[in-house]
């Protein structure tokens, strides 16, 4: 199809319009607002059959999604930052009840100090909530992930909720040229929503979300752990199928010019795009460098990550969030993935871009130089006046 210019929020709404979920319940919050505004216009214009509920809070929005999904509805929502934090309690209910809710997260810093701009502290804080987490580099990927997400969450071997993350403002509000898929292609790809035991099936009544005592809770948690194990193979297969309808082939981890690289920098989200430019520049200078874009944070692809990194000389992990008192949250994941590898590279962490602080090309070049010259500490802060 012809390429058109839209921003990241608009393409999420467009993907939902094409998928036509049964229920969308949401509460607007910057920088996600355009998603629910644009989608509510589709609803008002009669372009979708979705029951759209404008909730009075994010806690209510997620609770509505849980009820709708349990009833047997294909359900989507969107949030950001404090909104995601306000959903905290019920995020675990959604995953614990194994409800395949699809949620776009417009990554934004958490207060305080209050700030509306991009970092990943919202999604990173929810990493243990039992949701699958996919990150997009740009508008095209945000759209593509939003479509693939329904297939992954709703897969009968998985049935877990999924967050499709995109960088607040950088991706949500920037107009980019992207290629939408035809409505009928999206509809066919996503298919019909299937549910085994919908609450609205009056002939076969079930109880959902009952009190779970010491003698069963652990088993139900283990079921979630087990379901997560299916995500990587299923997502790989969904990405294959998606390539056939779109010509765009995604991987859970995407290496860039890594074939003969000695040094690599890892990032999630939009910074992964900037890194490719830097790699091209440094390659032109004859430096053996590459970059790695991580698309899937939960479940964390340990084996695939270790395979890519072992044998390198130096690797920097860029974290757009910080666990205060420790390191960035991505760093220990990568470090842990490498523990069993024979040939471990020097591994360093750079926390950057908190509260929407721009990450500049010169700063990223500096990271590569520090890798090459073995400079810097294990934990570094990039772009802060300190």
């Amino acid at each position: 199809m012809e390429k058109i210019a839209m921003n990241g929020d608009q393409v999420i709404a467009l993907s939902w319009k094409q998928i036509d979920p049964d229920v969308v319940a949401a509460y607007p919050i910057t920088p996600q607002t355009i998603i629910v505004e644009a989608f509510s216009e589709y609803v008002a214009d009669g372009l979708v059959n979705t029951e759209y509920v404008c909730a009075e809070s994010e806690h209510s929005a997620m609770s509505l999604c849980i009820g709708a999904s349990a009833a047997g509805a294909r359900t989507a929502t969107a949030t950001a930052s404090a909104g995601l934090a306000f959903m905290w309690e019920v995020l675990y209910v959604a995953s614990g009840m194994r409800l395949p809710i699809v949620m776009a997260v417009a990554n934004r810093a958490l207060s305080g100090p209050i700030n509306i701009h991009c970092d990943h502290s919202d999604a990173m804080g929810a990493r243990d909530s039992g949701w699958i987490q996919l990150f997009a580099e740009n508008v095209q990927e945000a759209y593509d992930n939003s479509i693939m997400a329904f297939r992954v969450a709703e897969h009968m071997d998985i049935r877990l909720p999924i967050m499709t993350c995109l960088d607040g403002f950088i991706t949500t509000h920037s107009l980019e040229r992207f290629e939408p898929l035809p409505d009928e292609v999206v509809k066919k790809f996503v298919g019909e929503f299937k549910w085994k035991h919908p609450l609205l099936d009056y002939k076969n009544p079930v109880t959902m979300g009952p009190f779970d005592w010491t003698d069963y809770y652990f088993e139900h948690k283990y079921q979630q752990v087990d379901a997560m194990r299916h995500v990587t193979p299923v997502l790989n297969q969904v990405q294959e199928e998606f390539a056939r309808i779109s010509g765009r082939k995604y991987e859970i981890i995407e290496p860039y010019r890594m074939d003969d690289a000695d040094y690599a920098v890892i990032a999630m989200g939009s910074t992964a795009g900037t890194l490719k430019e830097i790699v091209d520049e440094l390659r032109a200078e004859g430096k053996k460098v590459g970059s790695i874009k991580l698309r899937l944070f939960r479940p964390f692809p340990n084996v695939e990550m270790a395979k890519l990194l072992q044998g390198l000389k130096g690797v920097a992990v860029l974290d757009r969030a910080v666990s205060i008192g420790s390191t960035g949250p991505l760093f220990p994941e990568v470090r842990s993935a490498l523990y069993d590898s024979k040939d471990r590279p020097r591994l360093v962490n750079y926390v950057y871009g908190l509260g929407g602080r721009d990450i500049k090309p010169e700063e990223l070049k500096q990271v590569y130089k520090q890798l090459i010259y073995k400079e810097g500490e294990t934990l570094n802060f990039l772009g802060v006046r300190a």
Partner: protein
Amino acid sequence: MAGEKAEELPEGGMILVAGSSKNYNTGDWRSKRPECDAEKCTNCLICWVYCPDNSIIVKDGKRVGFKLTHCKGCGICANQCPVKAIKMVEEGA
């Protein structure tokens, strides 16, 4: 009841049959059990009204016993009894 493996259970704690709570012996939780002095009991059935676990057994309009498989020993019956006919006694004592 408990003993099934994770893969044998419906996902997410879902319960696929109705009325299954009767299969769960909440009486196992009890540390005190109710005992009734039949001399004092007037069969007013206030205990039956208040019991949250449907554990007061009534036959022909008369209180005839406690369903100890499901009585959690909460003591509400003893508390509500207007003639103090019910008292809570330590299990195993």
